[in-house]
């Protein structure tokens, strides 16, 4: 029986000829990731284990990004714990403030994730690296601890849903609209325990940043991972960012999928997920007037250069609505610098937005844009759960950078065409 792309990568890392859905395997890990929230718990667990140290100091990435720069004393203690662990174990890929970025934007940029890898991270959005043709999935802190100690993790081999993407999306339709459309279609548990495998000639019209956004939100459909085939654009990205060799795996022609869906990208419209679940999607044209108080453009989902370029294109020569807070957060130091050199930051500031140093900050209600009771935010982040960005009576509308920027200008949920 044929294997999916995910199954092939897992088989190779388990030293097996073939695997099938449901099989339990132990796989070698190419990278183990943690952040300032999950790593302290993992470090505490690892210290209980009777091991000398980490399995490979080059294959662990520690990225304080959630509450960094430290938002309070307790966060500072967490970061200190991670920093000292990194120092003690001579972790090569520890990224301090000034070098860091939001983990899932940073690691591909630093060339630490490439096609064919098996990666676990103690952060649910670790599935982002599927954009490069890697198997990557989120785990908890205990699995991270075991991974750091042994370089291995056990997995139940997932079955898969196949998404055949065709056509070319229209100007303001982005990767965010594609993945929100999919989540709206299959629901927040539509891919529970499964892989999302993307294929089709529409992929050529999706930039790498679009693909990172799509793979990033696979978890929002309950998926174990989301994965793209490696084409010329993915190969070029890896060549530019990484010195590591990569390996291309392709799904067998007779691979079995639980379901197959065809999505015509040219037919997609700007899509917004209403509170309080990412599956509550509406296309922009069917939304009545909804006044908002804040816009956030950033996060591991949509804080990359393409996202900032789109936001700047919308905001150029315009101004955010009176009383509106527009918070823009480049996801890494490099993206921040590139945005500066391209003049995007100037555009943002002239438009009345603020620009922050890289941080997850408001996405998970940490800091840098917490909502009060009754406030509404259009956000390019990934979750709109109750209380996610602040007060339990606040509301988050998930959208693309284009919609978020246009909404900042009008003060209500809007698309760029309406300006």
């Amino acid at each position, binding site marked *: 029986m044929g294997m999916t792309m995910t199954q092939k990568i897992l088989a190779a890392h388990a030293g097996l000829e073939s695997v099938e859905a449901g099989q339990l395997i132990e796989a070698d890990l190419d990278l183990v990731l943690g952040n300032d929230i999950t790593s302290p718990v993992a470090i505490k667990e690892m210290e209980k284990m009777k091991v000398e140290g980490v399995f490979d100091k080059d294959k662990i990435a520690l990225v304080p990004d959630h509450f960094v720069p430290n938002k309070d004393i307790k966060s500072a203690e967490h970061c200190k714990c991670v920093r000292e662990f990194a120092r003690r174990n001579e972790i090569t890929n520890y990224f301090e403030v000034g070098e860091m970025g939001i983990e899932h934007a940073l690691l591909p940029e630093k060339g630490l994730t490439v096609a064919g890898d098996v990666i676990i991270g103690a952060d649910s959005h670790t599935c982002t690296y599927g954009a490069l043709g890697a198997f990557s999935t989120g785990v908890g802190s205990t699995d991270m601890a075991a991974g750091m100690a042994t370089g291995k993790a056990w997995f139940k081999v997932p079955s898969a849903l196949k998404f055949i993407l065709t056509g070319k999306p229209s100007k303001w339709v982005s990767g965010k609209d594609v993945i929100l459309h999919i989540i709206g279609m299959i629901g927040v548990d539509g891919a529970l325990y499964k892989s999302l495998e993307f294929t089709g000639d529409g992929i050529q019209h999706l930039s790498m940043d679009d693909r990172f956004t799509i793979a990033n939100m696979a978890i929002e459909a309950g998926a174990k991972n989301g994965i793209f085939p490696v084409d010329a654009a993915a190969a070029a990205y890896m060549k530019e960012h990484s010195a590591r060799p990569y390996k291309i795996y392709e799904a067998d022609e007779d691979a079995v999928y639980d379901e197959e869906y065809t999505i015509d990208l040219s037919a997609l419209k700007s899509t917004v997920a209403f509170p309080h679940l990412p599956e509550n999607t509406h296309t922009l044209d069917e939304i009545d007037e909804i006044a908002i108080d804040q816009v956030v453009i950033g996060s591991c989902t949509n804080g990359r250069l393409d996202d900032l370029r789109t936001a700047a294109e919308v905001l150029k020569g315009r101004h955010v609505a009176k009383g509106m807070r527009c918070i823009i957060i480049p996801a890494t130091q490099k993206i921040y610098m590139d945005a500066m050199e391209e003049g995007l930051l100037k555009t943002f500031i002239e438009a009345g937005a603020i620009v922050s140093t890289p941080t997850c900050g408001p996405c998970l*209600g940490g800091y840098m844009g917490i909502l009060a009771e009754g406030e509404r935010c259009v956000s390019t982040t990934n979750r709109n759960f109750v209380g996610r960005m602040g007060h339990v009576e606040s509301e988050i509308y998930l959208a693309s950078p284009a919609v978020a920027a246009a909404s900042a200008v009008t003060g209500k949920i809007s698309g760029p065409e309406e300006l």
Partner: protein
Amino acid sequence: MKAKGNVFKYGDNVDTDVIIPARYLNSSEASELAQHCMEDIDKDFVNKVKKGDLIVADKNFGCGSSREHAPIAIKAAGVSCVIAETFARIFYRNAINIGLPIIECPEAAKGISAGDEVEVDFDSGIITNLTTKKSYQGQAFPPFMQKIIEAEGLINYINHK
């Protein structure tokens, strides 16, 4: 191994942000996390929950973030078992890894109401609603999983092996 207590009942898609809001994730102390468990979905939970009580929910319990703090908070609040129609993947793994028993059982999730007294036998997987006198067959816990639970987590279990 058995669990017995009164039930707190919730619906679909109880996410990790309502189980333990991120504003409290500047701590990793179990006792501190427990004080805010379920705060954004049920403010009274921490005041009402007694040691041994159970959480019963519908589908996709624990969806969202990978924070292990979520099952840690539930366990430290005194909850002896979570029963749901389905669990989100990362939460399922995390719960077992930290020694919080969880059982998927759609029939029990539907048939049990808030406040019911429920007993779970992990050897047989039988869930008994002592209030309504109805029983449900959940998945039995294999011996190694019971040992992980007894050792209070995977790491202790590995160390004791």
